[in-house]
């Protein structure tokens, strides 16, 4: 194992601070170690280490972002840390617009969550451990974003999965929580099989390299065959399905709400779940060519994303737990992001990732504030909280409007771009589903808001506003939710300029579609319509007579049951798949093992014994020993016979001597 340092720099040129981008994941990693070693002894239980580290990372991320905006110089460096002949494993950094954006998002949201957690987790039994895991998670996510090769990306990917497991099961004393953690881990792991296979196939398809930029280039320049690219894209998408909760592997995300709310905000809303979307955006060349996105119509990715969008939104309607509403909302929005990428609207998908991070984190933290006040997750025990928690209420409303896609908040711009991309890219199916989904989004969020903040308080506690440590992050997150969408408003289009997919291939460029006011108007109307409908049902209670109680009767009732049972998917997976493995498959395997495999092994053993006995008794004792003894006996017998010649009488010897001489002489005469 030779360590070779090859700092190969591509097209860096004038990149300044971006070359030190590797510090961004390093600081939280150091924080993790420090908290592990010294956390319990620190005055604030380790949280100050986490906040400082993530804060510094955030500062660095902002600097890197500025550097990128100014110089637009890609940093692609790697360092070979292990090689075996030609096969090299590298660790490196690839800093471009997408990476810079992700740095900012992840560090900012993480910082907000860190500050929030000092209040929310105050007095928790494993406070220090929580912050250690948060630091590790941040470090891992940033490491993944920084990656320039698929292997490194996978390392970060798996690490965030591990942290998710740790954090979901933070209160593992209750069985539900540890079960939820396991469910999350197993489901994402199932997807990760596809990821690993995809990476391996990509490695071989790209003639022995893991480097993402190279793979993109090769894919777009058609150096890799289409079938192979399709296979790679499908396999990688399996991983995306697991991590980014696409149908049917979305089942873990709602259950993951068993973890503390800051965890849900950070991991299951803003950062970890978007890892899959990030993967697609990063290795986009493979997906573009593999799924033939340019062609339009429909492809696997779009289909699954479209389904995800709708079914998750539907499920959000029947949830009582406020976090679950937000969880299904996240699944649905992830569907939007993946759908955007699947129709060729790369910038739209990434922009939606960007905006969604802010307002979803805001919503989660807001819900956490509510839960903290009411000591219950269920909306049936909430109501009328706007009187008691004004700051939370205001910020929550802002988040809701952003999510619903109301002009001019962030969600409007990003969702609109997705719909634009779908319509212009030739994906009418996605466009339709997107509009329906927008309506449903606005509707269920409206339901959520009205049930929580309006009406009369139905609970038993004394709700109060949360401490400043919790409300300040809410405010800080509300600001970008309000304004950040304007970065990509038509005319400004800064985001598109800064964060673009530039694989460096000549004939490739992604279409950017001009703002379509009609479409924007339609989507806005749809969103407002959704809000109005929800207000009608839950606020004004003004439902037309015929429809009142409609969901308790007839066909709609079965629909409601179906939704409550989450489409029986959990039953399918647990009873069906797991039950089959535990029951018949396990029994069959046991039988095979006992009868067949053990039978073979025993037979081999017995056979060997028989051969051994045979070898010993017959071959060795009789055969070989017989031969050896025989040689000895024959030697002694021959000696016994020859002995008779030695009579001891000299004259006999002399006789033999002379006779021999005579015979020799004779021989001499005759043969010469």
């Amino acid at each position, binding site marked *: 194992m030779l360590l070779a340092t090859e700092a190969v720099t591509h097209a860096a040129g004038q990149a300044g601070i971006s070359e030190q981008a590797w510090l961004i994941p390093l600081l939280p990693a150091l924080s993790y170690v420090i908290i592990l070693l010294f956390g319990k002894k620190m005055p604030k239980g380790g949280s100050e280490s986490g906040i400082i580290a993530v804060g510094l990372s955030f500062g660095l991320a902002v600097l890197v972002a500025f550097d990128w905006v100014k110089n637009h110089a890609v940093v692609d460096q790697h360092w070979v840390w292990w090689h075996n002949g030609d096969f090299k494993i590298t660790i490196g950094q690839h800093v471009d617009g997408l990476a810079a954006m992700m740095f900012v998002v992840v560090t900012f949201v993480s910082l907000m969550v860190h500050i929030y957690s000092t209040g929310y987790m105050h007095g928790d039994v494993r406070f220090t451990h929580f912050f250690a895991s948060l630091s590790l998670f941040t470090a891992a996510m940033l490491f993944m974003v920084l990656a320039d090769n698929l292997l490194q990306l996978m390392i970060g990917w798996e690490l965030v999965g591990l942290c998710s497991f740790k954090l979901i099961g933070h209160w593992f004393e209750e069985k539900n929580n540890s079960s939820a953690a396991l469910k999350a881990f197993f489901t994402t792991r199932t997807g990760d099989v596809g990821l690993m296979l995809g990476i391996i196939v990509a490695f071989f398809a790209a003639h022995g390299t893991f480097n993402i930029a190279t793979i993109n280039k090769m894919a777009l320049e058609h150096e890799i065959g289409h079938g192979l690219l399709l296979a790679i894209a499908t396999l990688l998408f399996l991983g995306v399905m697991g991590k980014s909760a696409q149908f049917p592997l979305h089942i873990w995300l709602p259950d993951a709400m068993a973890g503390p709310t800051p965890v849900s905000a950070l991991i299951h809303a803003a950062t970890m779940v978007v890892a899959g979307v990030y993967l697609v955006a990063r290795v986009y060349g493979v997906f573009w060519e593999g799924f033939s996105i340019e062609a339009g119509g429909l492809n696997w990715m779009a289909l699954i994303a479209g389904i995800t969008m709708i079914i998750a939104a539907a499920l959000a309607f029947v949830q009582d737990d406020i976090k679950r509403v937000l969880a299904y909302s996240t699944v649905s929005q992830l569907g939007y992001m993946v759908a955007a990428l699947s129709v060729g609207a790369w910038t739209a998908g990434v922009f939606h990732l960007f905006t969604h991070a802010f307002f979803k984190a805001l919503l989660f933290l807001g819900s956490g504030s509510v839960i903290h006040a009411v000591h219950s997750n269920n909306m049936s025990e909430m109501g009328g909280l706007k009187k008691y928690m004004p700051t939370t209420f205001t910020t929550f409303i802002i988040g809701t409007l952003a999510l619903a896609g109301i002009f001019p908040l962030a969600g409007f711009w990003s969702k609109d771009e997705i719909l634009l991309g779908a319509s212009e890219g030739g994906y009418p199916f996605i466009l339709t589903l997107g509009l329906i989904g927008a309506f449903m989004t606005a509707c269920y969020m409206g339901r959520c808001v009205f049930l929580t903040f309006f009406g009369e308080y139905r609970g038993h506690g004394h709700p109060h506003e949360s401490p400043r440590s919790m409300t300040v992050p809410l405010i800080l997150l509300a600001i970008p939710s309000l304004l950040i969408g304007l970065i990509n408003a038509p005319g400004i289009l800064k985001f598109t300029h800064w964060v673009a997919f530039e694989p460096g291939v000549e004939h490739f460029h992604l279409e950017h579609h001009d703002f379509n006011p009609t479409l924007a108007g339609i989507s806005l109307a749809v969103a407002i319509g959704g809000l109005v409908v929800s207000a009608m049902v839950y606020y004004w209670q003004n439902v037309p007579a015929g429809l009142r109680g409609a969901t308790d009767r007839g066909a709609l009732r079965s629909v409601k049951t179906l939704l409550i049972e989450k489409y029986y998917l959990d039953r399918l997976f647990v009873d069906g798949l797991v039950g089959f493995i535990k029951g018949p498959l396990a029994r069959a395997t046991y039988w095979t093992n006992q009868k067949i495999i053990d039978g073979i092994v025993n037979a081999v053993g017995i056979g060997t014994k028989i051969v051994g006995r045979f070898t010993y008794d017959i071959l060795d004792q009789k055969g070989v020993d017989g031969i050896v003894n025989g040689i000895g006996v024959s030697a002694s017998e021959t000696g016994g016979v020859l002995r008779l010649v030695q009579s001891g009488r000299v*004259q*006999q010897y002399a*006789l033999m001597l*002379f*006779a021999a*001489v*005579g*015979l020799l*002489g*004779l021989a*001499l*005469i005759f043969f010469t």
Partner: protein
Amino acid sequence: MPVILAEYAAQNVSFWIIAAIMAAAAIGVVTMKNIVHAALALVVVLAGVAAQYILLQAEFLGIVQVLIYIGAVIVLFLFGIMLTRAPMRKSAEYDNDQRPLAGAVALLIFGVLAYLLADEFSGDKLNITQPMATSAIADSIFRSYVVAFEAVSMLLLAALIGAIVLARRD
């Protein structure tokens, strides 16, 4: 020419007569049942050998032969016969069981030797012009073969001492 022929013929005749006598005596040595008679037959053989030496113009050697062999060795034999109390009469004990085989072997060897020698040396004629001078022999001994001479004298000494040591009574 007739003188040479006569000389030639005389030597031949005398050779054959002496050879016949020697042959008969030799057979007698190995077959006679009386040991003393066998010893005496040996005397005849040895004398015949001396005569052959004279015929071969090796006078010194002939004299030495008579002196040593007949004079000393035979006496030794007779003493040996006496001291070992060998039955000095006709006894069948003097021949052992492997006589036929021995005869066969002896005949075989004789055949081989005779053939080889006759094959090689047939046609060679002895051409003795004058007798070998004793001085020539002496020269040869004390010049060319002086080491052998010394060795033989050592041998004799050793044999002498050895015989005494072996045979003494103590």
